[in-house]
């Protein structure tokens, strides 16, 4: 490879902002866009958090009558959708992706900074449209985050007037935003790496984000298409998803549509979506674990191939969400099999994390605590996933709290823990200051233990048959043992505590920004490229005059015979003297 020539990187023109607006609001700097994504995602995530606490109060103390059934269903829907799409997807790809990819690959910026800037603003628009749902007549949709027709559209479902429209419109806009961002991430990873940076030298964070983006670009189209078709069903009376139906005694003007088609399209998107959230988390966790174990990640190549394999397999397992939907009876066998196969690469990753820790010199820093708790939580959620992947076990458990426990563990709590850990890990690079360690630890233990107290008992609630998405469990569930009612009270109280404790983290973010201890350029002693920038925080263009040259992978920790306990990626190989 010619040393001198970096085909497009060197000729890249960066915009040079002059006013406050172009510097902080319409900035084309990937680091600023990352922060914008992050702040917006956290803000909207807080809305979802408040909704979840309100729901919990309703579940445990229905006699307080704090909300109507409609409000409950709307809260479920908004909570689920915000958490999955507008918080997790946006944060892991929009914030981590934007920040990490150029820095870790040694690029000056994303390949198309202008499109990247647009991506954030379109995302912001989608969030606003989503929230407008609370102000339109009838409120937001209460159809559940899966939005299954026909009930999404029929009378009696809250938000069937306007809420469903704002929801679908917001999703469509989000997909446009995601596509603009995603094309950037993919192009940057594939075409804008620096000298010496091969794909197999990239940190796993970049690999995870890259695979997730790839999944997103191929999976979101299915959601986009179903959103369009449902909007047409709703507004101009087509019958794509709507069968002939009698609703509230009235014969609707629909006929011959196929509700199952929506479910298939939705889950053709929905299952990869789970991995869009999980794969970046896998990547970030791998890096945090390796840095804090002061060991190279065990089986790097296998980790990469496992990411790829999971990504591919995730496109052929979607109907495991539909075992009780009345689909083709042979599908149960097919999709159960593929689902169980996907456990193999996933298990490989878990083993490799654990083997990385084996006999390591573990530093229990706050990011490491989050990373370790992720592994634990993910194992637990993954195992219940194996239960649900088997048709015969899924049939009685589906739509019970067992499912709620499963998905909160595996795609709710686990990636959130990674987000906390990741922010903590990169905060010094983003702001030049450390987050407060004590607040970090307090927040970690409350959140970690709290979520276990919240979700662990839910498995049991599921076994005794507590149905999911029920507004009032007292009326319909006199058959519960009294213990279950107490359990619900405990869960709610802890959920309130955990919810409130999130303010600690936000306080920490704000406080440390102004008062935090000044950070050294590489406080964790990490080897990957983002810690080698000439300035901290890196300036626009990241690398000063010349791009770094990469000589090794990102995991040279505790190499024998070396004076430091890590070797940065841009340090030349010592010629064998």
């Amino acid at each position, binding site marked *: 490879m010619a040393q001198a020539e970096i085909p497009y990187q060197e000729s890249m023109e960066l915009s040079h902002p002059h006013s406050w607006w172009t510097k902080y609001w319409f900035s084309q700097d990937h680091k600023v866009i990352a922060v914008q994504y992050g702040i917006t995602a956290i803000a909207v995530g807080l809305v979802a958090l408040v909704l979840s606490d309100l729901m919990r109060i309703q579940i445990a103390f229905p006699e307080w009558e704090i909300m109507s059934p409609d409000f409950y269903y709307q809260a479920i829907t908004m909570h689920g959708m915000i958490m999955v799409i507008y918080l997790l997807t946006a944060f892991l790809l929009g914030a981590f992706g934007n920040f990490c990819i150029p820095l870790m690959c040694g690029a000056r910026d994303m390949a198309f900074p202008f499109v990247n800037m647009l991506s954030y603003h379109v995302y912001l628009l989608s969030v606003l449209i989503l929230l407008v749902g609370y102000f339109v007549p009838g409120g937001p949709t209460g159809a559940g985050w899966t939005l299954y027709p026909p009930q999404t559209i029929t009378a009696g479902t809250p938000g069937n007037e306007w809420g469903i429209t704002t929801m679908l419109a917001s999703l469509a806009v989000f997909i446009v935003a995601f596509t603009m961002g995603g094309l950037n991430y993919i192009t940057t990873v594939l075409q804008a790496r620096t000298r010496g940076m091969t794909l197999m030298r990239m940190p796993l964070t970049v690999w995870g984000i890259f695979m997730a983006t790839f999944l997103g670009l191929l999976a979101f189209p299915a959601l986009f298409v179903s959103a369009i078709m449902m909007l047409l069903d709703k507004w101009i009376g087509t019958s794509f998803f709507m069968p*002939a*139906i009698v609703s509230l005694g009235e014969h609707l*003007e*629909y006929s*011959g549509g*196929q509700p*199952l088609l929506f479910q298939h399209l939705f889950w053709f998107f929905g299952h990869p979506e789970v991995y869009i959230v999980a794969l970046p988390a896998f990547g970030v966790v791998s890096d945090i674990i390796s840095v804090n174990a002061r060991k190279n990640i065990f089986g790097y190549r296998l980790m990469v191939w496992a990411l790829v394999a999971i990504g591919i397999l995730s496109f052929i397992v979607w109907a495991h969400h539909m075992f009780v939907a009345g689909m083709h*009876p042979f599908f149960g066998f097919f999709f159960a099999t593929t689902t169980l196969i996907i456990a193999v690469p996933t298990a490989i990753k878990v083993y490799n994390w654990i083997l990385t820790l084996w006999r390591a010199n573990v530093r229990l820093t706050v990011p490491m605590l989050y990373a370790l708790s992720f592994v634990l939580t993910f194992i637990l959620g993954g195992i219940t996933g194996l239960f649900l992947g088997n048709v015969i076990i899924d049939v009685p458990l589906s739509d019970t709290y067992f499912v709620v426990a499963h998905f909160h563990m595996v795609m709710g709590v686990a990636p959130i823990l990674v987000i906390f850990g990741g922010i903590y890990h990169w905060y010094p690079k983003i702001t030049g200051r450390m987050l407060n360690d004590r607040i970090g630890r307090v927040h970690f233990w409350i959140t970690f233990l709290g979520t276990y107290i919240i979700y662990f008992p839910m498995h049991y609630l599921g076994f005794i048959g507590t149905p999911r998405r029920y507004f009032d469990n007292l009326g319909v569930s006199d058959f519960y043992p009294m213990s279950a009612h107490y359990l619900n009270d405990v869960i709610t109280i802890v959920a309130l505590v955990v919810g409130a404790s999130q303010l600690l983290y936000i306080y920490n973010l704000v406080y440390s920004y102004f008062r935090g201890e000044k950070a050294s350029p590489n406080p964790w002693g990490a080897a990957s490229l983002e810690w080698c920038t000439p300035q901290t925080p890196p300036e626009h263009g990241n690398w000063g005059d010349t791009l770094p040259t990469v000589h090794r992978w990102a995991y040279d920790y505790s190499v024998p015979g070396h004076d430091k306990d890590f070797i940065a990626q841009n340090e030349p190989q010592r010629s064998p003297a």
Partner: protein
Amino acid sequence: MASQGQQHPIKVYFLVWFLLFVFSAGSYYVDIAGFEGMARWFLILVFMLLKAGFIVAVFMHMKWERPALILAILLPTLFLLVLMYLMAFEADYAYATRVLYFGADPNAVALPPVTH
């Protein structure tokens, strides 16, 4: 080198252009000549794939790209084949259940549409 891009003799383009017209005419012929059943579907698909193949290969220059790009673009579409194949299964089954529950006459709608 890179900015030189995809430069090929104009002759190729004219040839493909011509072929596209021929294939389109072929598809019409299938319709006009009134082929039915398997023969019709087979011919339509063949002409469709030929046209698509030439557009992608020559007009979009895929033929001259390096295999790294060709594979990266073509392989993911296999997911779509899986989706298509499985949905065809599913649709057959859904149709069968409709006939089963709503009447033996396959041409009957479950509930007649209510017109405006």
